[in-house]
């Protein structure tokens, strides 16, 4: 990268981070981002989350582990209020405190919550538009440019996910022309461009090859100092590599929450022990 582009990157850094820091300031001290209390969720008549209690620490990477169908993805959707986009899904009871307010309190705008809490889906979803427009999709809607030229703004976030050098000459190409790993990083850039405080990831590597997985994992670790990250995975090795805290779920219930090292080395529950040793799941 040449010198001039580095200088302008530094400028953009200041502008964008400054705005993000201001927005985050009020809750900076609170060590807990999400406090979940007795949360129950159902799809129609089928209860998929049963009386869940847990918490997510600020600035940490929390992994949610468990076999398929145990309610991990549903839980993530509750956290950024995209659950209600699924027909027949509803919160039966409980509360999720976020930034001192209940997520489901009257007057809380789901649209605002979704900007502050980004969600990366299992399979990357490139939008039917150019790479540039895709990165700027949310930021443009929310008016986050703050005077930064859109192309600069996009470049900053593409650099954050290590995609800039690969796409800088093809920004006007359609986003779905990228490879799977590139698409997933694009989705991450798009979410980061929304200036969220929390990033939720729903098995972000499940459709990627080992090399792309490694890249995403490195990115997740790199983002840790600035974001709170919750990552759903059924890949135990991945959870071990990236997370600080781990939550083990089974059949819609939380069996155990503890620091990741403890979950793997010294689990308190017999079920957790069986899961981490590969006997269930």
């Amino acid at each position, binding site marked *: 990268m040449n010198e001039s582009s580095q200088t302008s990157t530094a400028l953009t850094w200041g502008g964008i981070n400054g705005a993000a820091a201001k927005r985050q300031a009020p809750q900076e001290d609170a060590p807990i981002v999400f406090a979940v209390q007795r949360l129950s969720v159902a799809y129609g008549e089928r209860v998929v989350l049963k009386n869940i209690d847990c918490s997510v620490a600020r600035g940490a990477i929390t992994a949610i582990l468990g076999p398929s169908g145990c309610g991990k993805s549903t839980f993530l959707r509750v956290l950024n209020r995209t659950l209600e986009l699924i027909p027949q899904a509803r919160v039966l009871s409980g509360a999720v405190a976020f930034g001192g307010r209940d997520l489901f309190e009257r007057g809380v705008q789901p649209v605002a919550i979704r900007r502050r809490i980004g969600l990366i889906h299992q399979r990357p979803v490139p939008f039917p538009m150019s790479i540039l427009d895709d990165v700027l999709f*949310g930021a443009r*809607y929310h008016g986050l440019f703050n005077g930064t030229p859109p192309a600069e703004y996009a470049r900053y976030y593409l650099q954050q996910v290590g995609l800039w050098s690969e796409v800088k000459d093809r920004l006007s190409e359609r986003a779905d022309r990228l490879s799977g790993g590139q698409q997933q990083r694009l989705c991450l850039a798009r979410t980061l461009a929304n200036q969220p405080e929390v990033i939720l990831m729903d098995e972000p590597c499940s459709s990627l090859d080992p090399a792309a997985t490694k890249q995403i994992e490195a990115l997740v670790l790199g983002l840790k100092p600035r974001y709170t990250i919750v990552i759903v995975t059924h890949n135990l090795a991945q959870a071990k590599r990236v997370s600080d805290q781990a939550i083990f779920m089974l059949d819609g219930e939380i069996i155990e929450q503890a620091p990741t090292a403890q979950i793997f080395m010294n689990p308190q529950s017999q079920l957790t022990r069986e899961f981490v040793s590969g006997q269930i799941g």
Partner: protein
Amino acid sequence: MGFILPMSLILFLCYHGAQAITWELLWQSPKGFPLGSSGGIRPAIEGSLALVAIGLSVALPLALGAAIYLTEYSASVGLQRAVSFCAECLAGVPAVIYGLVGYSFLVVFVKLRISLLAGGITLGLVMLPIIMIGAYEALRAVERKYREAALALGVSRLFAFRNNVWPKARAGLLAAVVLAAGHAFGSAAPVLMTASVVLSKSGPDLSSPVMTLPTHLYYLVSEASSPQQAYATALILVALLLMANVTVMLIKGSHGR
């Protein structure tokens, strides 16, 4: 079979009607006795195009609005099923019934008389269910993940629809519109009692009756005066429909690339 049948139909029409297609046929009014045995069919082409244009301006906003509401805003599966069931029933109603409704309601009750406006609205009713079903299917064919991924970024439903769903559904929507317009363009029954006249001397005017291609063809054949003129008229009708369909195919093709 799917290829041979339409091709032989077109070849048959060409064989009988091609030599009657002249500049005069396309640009002049019908003449002679019985009427239409010489001269052209220009007022019929104009009338048919005007009827379809008015029909589209009635049907398109209603049908698109309904389809968009059902796929993007309504959470009720029951409503979606009920509306699509009704639309499918409507699409199955014989064209002559539409003509009858148009006549008794628009022509007589609303006192629009036999006119371009009455016929255009009637054709709009014919097109409404076809466009709605096609648009609904085209919108539903856009996978949910595009809406969800957009909404997960905190944008409004309208923003997500405009930028993510619309571009993906556009080709399918267009195909539905052309299919409906073609169907309306070629049907005689709905306009026979609401809009058409054997000869119109002026250009299309909302409050006057118009000539149309299918009804002109019907008169030509029933009078058995000049089979060659009839074949030529049929050929032009089919050629216009074919052109519309080929255009859609090209648009779809370039969209898919």
